[in-house]
C-alpha cells in the first residue's frame, strides 16, 4: 500500500481531525485498538497482536509493526 493511502485510511479509521503523518500520535483506547486491528487485517492481511499494539505511540511505530516492506 502506498503511504499516502495508508495515512488517509488511518485518518478515517481513527476518526482523526488532523492530517496524518508518521509523527502523528496514536492514542490507544479499546475502540481505536479494535479499529486498528480491523484496518490492518483488511488491508495487509496481517494480524497485529493487541500486546504488540501497546508499544505503539505513533503512526511510525505502527508502520514498523506492520512491516516497512508493505509500504511503497
Amino acid at each position, binding site marked *: 500500500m502506498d503511504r499516502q493511502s495508508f495515512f488517509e485510511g488511518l485518518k478515517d479509521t481513527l476518526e482523526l481531525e488532523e492530517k496524518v503523518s508518521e509523527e502523528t500520535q496514536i492514542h490507544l*483506547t*479499546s*475502540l481505536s*485498538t*479494535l479499529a486498528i*486491528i*480491523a484496518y490492518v*487485517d*483488511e488491508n495487509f492481511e496481517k*494480524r497485529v*497482536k*493487541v500486546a504488540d*499494539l*501497546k508499544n505503539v505511540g505513533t503512526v511510525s511505530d505502527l508502520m514498523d509493526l506492520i512491516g516497512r516492506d508493505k509500504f511503497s
Partner: protein
Amino acid sequence: MHITSIEYYLPENILDNSQLAREFPEWDADKIFEKIGIDQRHIAKEDETALDMAVKASEKVFSNFDRSMIDFVLLCTQSPDYFLPTSACILQDKLGLRINIGALDYNLGCSGFVYGLAVARGLISAGVAKNILLVMSETYSKFIHPKDKSNRSIFGDGAAAVIISESDKKGILEFELGTDGSGMNNLIVPNGGLRNKFNPDEKDFIDENEYLRNNNCLYMNGPEIFDFTIEQVPGLVTRVLGKNNLTIETVDYVIFHQANKYMLDYLRKKVKIPAEKFYQNMEKTGNTVSATIPIALKDSIDNGVVKSGDKILLAGFGVGYSWGAVVVEI
C-alpha cells in the same frame, strides 16, 4: 430430529442509550448506537434471576407443546441461582415436568446454543431422549460494575427456550466445535468462584482499556476478543459449510452470535457473506450471550426471512474461548 418450537423472554426493565448518556455525560448516545448497533437492553430486576427468566421463557414454549412429553432438560447459564443444587433440577420442579427425566446445567456463554444443539442431537441419536427442553438464560447485568459504561452498553439480559424433538426430519445437521482455554482471562468474572472468593473490600481501578472495574465484576478485553473472532470465525464458517456440503452461495441464511454491530459487520465482510442473508438485529436486546442466536432465529422465522426448508448456518463464539457452528433446517 428438528427444532419444533422457540420462544424467548426479555425482562421488563429497559436501559436505553439516552439513559446511559445521562449517566455518562462523556458518552454520546448516537455514537454508541453507530458503533455497537444497540439502542436498548432489557435488564433483570434485582430479585429476578436467570432461573426465573428460564421459567418464563419455558412457560411460553409450553403454550403450544405438551410439557409431559419433555424427557430431558438442558440449561445453559453462567449466572446460576446457587453453586448447588443444579438450576435445571429446580427448573424441572418449577415447570411441573415429569420426574423420570434427565436434567443438567452447562456453563457456556456465547457458544452455548450451538453446544446445546450438539448435546441434544447426541441424546436423541443415542435413544436417551425424545423431546428436549433446551434453555439459555443469562443475566450478565448482575456481574457488571455500575460504572462500566462499555459492558453496560453491550450486554442485555434474556432467556430463550427451545424444544428439540425426535423426528424423521434431518433438522440439525453437522457441527464444527472449538475450544481454547488460553483465552480465559480476556472475558472473565475473576472473583466469586472458589479460585478467588468474592471480596466485599475489592478496590475499583481503571483497566488498560481505560474502563473502571473491579475483580468482583465482569471483565472483557474487547480488542483481544475481537482478535480471537478474526482468528477463528472465518475458518469455523468454512469448515462447517464443508462438512454440510454447502457454500456461502448455497446456504440460505446465516445467524452469528449477536455480539455487537462493529464485530459482525467486520466478520460478515471478511467471510464474504451477502448482507441480505446475514441476520443482524441487536438494536432492542443487546448482546444476551447464549440467548442471542435462538432469539435471532425466532425473529427470523416470525418475520418470514427464514422459511420452512431453509438451511441456516448458526455460529456462536466467545467466553472460554469457546466456539461452534452448525447448519439447521427449519
